[in-house]
């Protein structure tokens, strides 16, 4: 069901953990739907992401997309991190099953939420960053069968 890369990031997830006094923390998703992602960012004065950690409650794909998203933003500037889309996360994992695409959206959303928190704490505005939805599944309708 999953690609080798997804399995690798699920079984050996990179950057699991917390950062104390993080520059920004973002939590997205909800327990009702079965996925929650939390991303911690440590951003230095020049706006470079020095460290990133995550915690995820969710399926194999949710863990793997979180892990890959942290790898993709680590060492990047805030503006570069903003360009990391769910598509990029999926491509880096060699794809996801169609029912799991929402996990990659959640990963993108979690990064944005953490960046938003950082901007708020710093009192700055990041060009192109919108206030994240608190619930990724808002407005999503259940499928007819």
């Amino acid at each position, binding site marked *: 069901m*999953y690609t080798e890369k997804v*399995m690798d990031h*699920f*079984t050996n*997830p990179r950057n*699991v953990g*917390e950062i104390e006094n993080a520059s920004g923390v973002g*939590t997205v998703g909800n*327990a*009702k*739907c*079965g*996925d*929650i*992602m*939390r991303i911690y960012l440590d951003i230095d004065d020049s706006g470079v992401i020095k460290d990133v950690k*995550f*915690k*995820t*409650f*969710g*399926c*194999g*794909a*949710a*863990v793997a997309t979180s892990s890959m998203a942290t790898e993709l933003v680590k060492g990047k500037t805030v503006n570069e991190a903003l360009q990391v889309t769910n598509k990029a996360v999926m491509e880096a994992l060699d794809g996801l099953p169609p*029912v*799991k695409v929402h996990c990659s959206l959640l990963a993108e959303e979690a990064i944005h939420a953490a960046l938003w928190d950082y901007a708020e704490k710093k009192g700055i505005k990041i060009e192109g960053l919108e206030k994240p939805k608190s619930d990724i*599944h808002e407005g*999503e309708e*259940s*499928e007819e*069968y």
Partner: protein
Amino acid sequence: MDRKIYLDNAATTKTRPEVVEAMLPYFTELYGNPSSVYEFATQNKKAVDEARGIIARALGADISEIYFTGSGTEADNWALKAVADAYASKGNHIITSKIEHHAILHTCEYLEKHGVEVSYIDVDENGILKLDQLEKAIRPTTVLISVMFANNEIGTLQPIKEIGEIAKKHNILFHTDAVQAFGQLPIDVNELGIDMLSASAHKLNGPKGIGFLYIRKGVKIRSFVHGGAQERQRRAGTENVPGIVGFGKAVELALATMQERAEKEIKLRNLLMKRILEEIPFVRVNGDKVRRLPNNANFSFQFIEGESLLIMLDMNNICASSGSACTSGSLDPSHVLLAIGLPHEIAHGSLRLTVSDEITEEEIHYTVDKIKEIVEKLRKMSPLYEDFMKKR
């Protein structure tokens, strides 16, 4: 451990070698069509009738009351759709439970789109049907009560005899989906007041692709598949002779070993539950402690998600199942776990393990050791666990 540990016997079971052996001649030498007149084919008609007789006796039914189908799901579809049709002049109301298999629930949804009214009765926190609510739901237009014998996820056994009595008192037909129970527990359709019953061979070490519907004599029922004269003209199509023969053999073996198997499975299941409850914090057992299938254990591990747990168990050669949304292909976790009152996030962390008599105690110990490791690993990466621990 190199060998596979199969703990998903509620999904399907291994076909017993004796069953396969009984089936084989009906693929090769004895391939005749039971409907043909020559001697070569009438042997097959005899084999089909023998299997039908074994099944009828297992239920205390008459041989003419057993109708073979392609699956338990087909039997469920047939029972509901045909009763709704044949009894339309009496009424258009069906009563069922909230924790039925999708073979019943999705058929009910289909019927609702075609003018049938359905009442879905609640269950208590252990999954036992609320009988008072059932009785109150009965209307003059009620034609059928359909309640499963045993639940496929949490293993809870329903008060079938009491439901049968209520149905009889109100002159309503009673159907039970006994797919999980048939061959595991003694069932007598007369003693329990059952008018129709669905079952499937592959849940009791028989082959896949064969089921049956028991229909009590006198119940009006429409043909489900039109064509030839097979199954008393009610379910046309050339009989799945090897499947039917295999089903008969599987039932014969299941009845002969029922008590011994149940005792062994209960012992293994209880060992599994005891160790998990004692050694892993923040876990609950779902389903009734006593009124439960011998082989079923169902847990909810707080703060983790079921699919992750299943994949990691699979990497350790352990086959299990979960009621999490990710395993159902939708965003909602199991309707059964929600119906017993579990919050969504706890329902997402469920794990079902269903043992067989081929499992050893050593394999149970190995499985519990692995579950402990995996649950700990997943909790370490869970933001829910982090929040919970910080609040303590």
